[in-house]
């Protein structure tokens, strides 16, 4: 931390906890109050719940920074969440690192839609964002070409089996859940939708676009104005598809993840995306979205550190970082924010045995991406610390004045 004393220590802690993972002591788990805290959540990637115990879905630091993640029982050097002197704390090798809090449960969570669906299975809640993932199945996996870092289909299949959680949502359930969520003053600042890629349709992704239109219209029926703070994290749509989405919904911002900002590695790690669309076209489509949504209202996520996956990834952190930041600058110079998450080689993904890079790599990556937004005057309101909460680089942006 001393070497990077101009970087928020909370962001450094977040990156390291995500990178190394964490576990809970029994005392810490005893502090979970099922009536107040979230312990089950619909997520696309990762894990929806622990089937054996009520485990907090994520953590919040004192400054409002989130740490998104479920504990890992197989982590080699995890942080430990403990309760000491009445406070929940992160500890490392027995030393207290920082105070943490569990995410609170929104009022709608324990309610049901008119069809009997638990509302927590329709919309999950990041600290200040409503997350609705209408389709938890990715078609790229149908041919075995899903992204190697991702466990979306493994997770959704397991959740369907263990707690009868449907992979697809209905528009009526979405409408009713958003309506209920909006009754809680001050709880949300953004609505986000995401889905596994749907390749079908006259043009690739046409059916995915139609699905988003139906779901966004259902959610949008709850708002006074046509447009409302919202985003989707979706496949790379054509200009025609993006225009149709923008014109027919309340959508204000758009994300399509380039995942691995390097063509050769993208072809290896995101084989399906590369074969069906191609790196250059995927990138071109993201950049063209700026024409519709405006500079700063389009972002692209990368799985930070996955560019070092072996055997084809970079073997030197300096080389990897240089390549990533150069490509990110190309996006930023054309109005697209590149945001990163910390790559966690998770169970159910093809890369579950891999090793992620050093903490220093992640600190440099977060700072580098945040600095690019400063250089190109891009704000990241669409995906800031209190919305997604999964990007160390966008957490840093709140320390800068526009």
């Amino acid at each position: 931390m001393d070497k990077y004393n101009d970087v928020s220590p909370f962001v450094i802690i977040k990156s390291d906890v995500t990178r190394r993972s964490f576990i809970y002591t029994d005392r810490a788990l005893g502090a979970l109050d099922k009536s107040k805290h979230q312990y089950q959540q619909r997520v696309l990637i990762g894990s929806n719940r622990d089937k054996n115990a009520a485990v907090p879905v994520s953590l919040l630091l004192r400054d409002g920074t989130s740490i998104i993640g479920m504990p890992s029982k197989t982590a080699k050097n995890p942080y430990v969440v403990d309760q000491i002197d009445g406070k929940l704390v992160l500890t490392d090798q027995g030393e207290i690192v920082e105070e943490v809090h569990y995410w609170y449960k929104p009022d709608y969570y324990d309610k049901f839609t008119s069809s009997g669906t638990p509302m927590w299975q329709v919309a999950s809640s990041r600290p200040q964002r409503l997350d609705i993932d209408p389709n938890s199945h990715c078609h790229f996996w149908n041919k075995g070409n899903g992204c190697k870092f991702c466990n979306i289909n493994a997770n959704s299949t397991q959740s369907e089996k263990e707690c009868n959680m449907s992979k697809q949502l209905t528009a009526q359930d979405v409408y009713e859940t958003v309506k209920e969520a909006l009754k809680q003053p001050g709880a949300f600042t953004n609505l986000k939708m995401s889905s596994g890629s749907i390749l079908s349709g006259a043009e690739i992704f046409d059916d995915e676009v139609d699905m988003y239109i139906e779901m966004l219209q259902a959610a949008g029926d709850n708002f006074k104005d046509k447009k409302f703070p919202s985003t989707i994290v979706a496949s790379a749509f054509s200009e025609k598809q993006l225009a149709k989405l923008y014109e027919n919904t309340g959508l204000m911002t758009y994300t399509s993840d380039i995942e691995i900002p390097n063509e050769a590695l993208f072809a290896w790690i995101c084989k399906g995306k590369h074969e069906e669309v191609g790196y250059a076209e995927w990138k071109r489509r993201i950049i063209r979205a700026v024409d519709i949504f405006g500079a700063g209202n389009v972002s692209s996520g990368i799985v930070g550190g996955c560019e070092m996956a072996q055997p084809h990834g970079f073997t030197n952190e300096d080389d990897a970082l240089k390549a990533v930041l150069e490509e990110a600058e190309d996006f930023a110079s054309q109005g697209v924010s590149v945001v990163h998450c910390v790559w966690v080689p998770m169970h159910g993904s093809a890369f579950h045995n891999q090793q992620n890079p050093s903490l220093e790599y992640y600190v440099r990556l977060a700072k580098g991406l945040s600095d690019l937004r400063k250089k190109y005057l891009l704000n990241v309101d669409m995906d800031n610390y209190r919305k997604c909460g999964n990007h160390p680089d966008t957490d840093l942006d709140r320390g800068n004045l526009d």
Partner: protein
Amino acid sequence: MKLMSILNERIQTLLQDSVAAKVLATADKQGIPHIVSDPTITVNDEGQIIYLELIETSRSNVNLVNSIWFKRKVAIHLSKGEESYQIKGYPAYSVICGPVFEHYYKLSLERNPEFDLSTVWIIEPDEIMDDTYAARKNKERDVHPLITHLDRLAK
């Protein structure tokens, strides 16, 4: 019942007085100061100071973010009539969600339906000064007896 705090009962009462003048001073990364006057600054049951930030992108909010990140103090000036205090402390929590946030969100709405609360800042007081002229001058006379004008000492 209030818990132990370095703020005595009188100062806590003043902080809860909506007529008292309250000013928050912060500094940016370069040390450039910034102040806001806000009569809604108050104190919670733990004797911590509460500042409600209504503008997410304001200079005060950004300065407070940097203060909590890098452990920099902020200052609060508090005065009413002849009384005047300066309190220095550290931003300890930036509350952006949950029951505490929602409590103050509703309170802000009651004050003005246009208010859209961004952050509840909880400031841990660390240092208190009696900021009246008499108190400051007496302190100086004790420590620096040579600093004065001679005419004041003449027969």
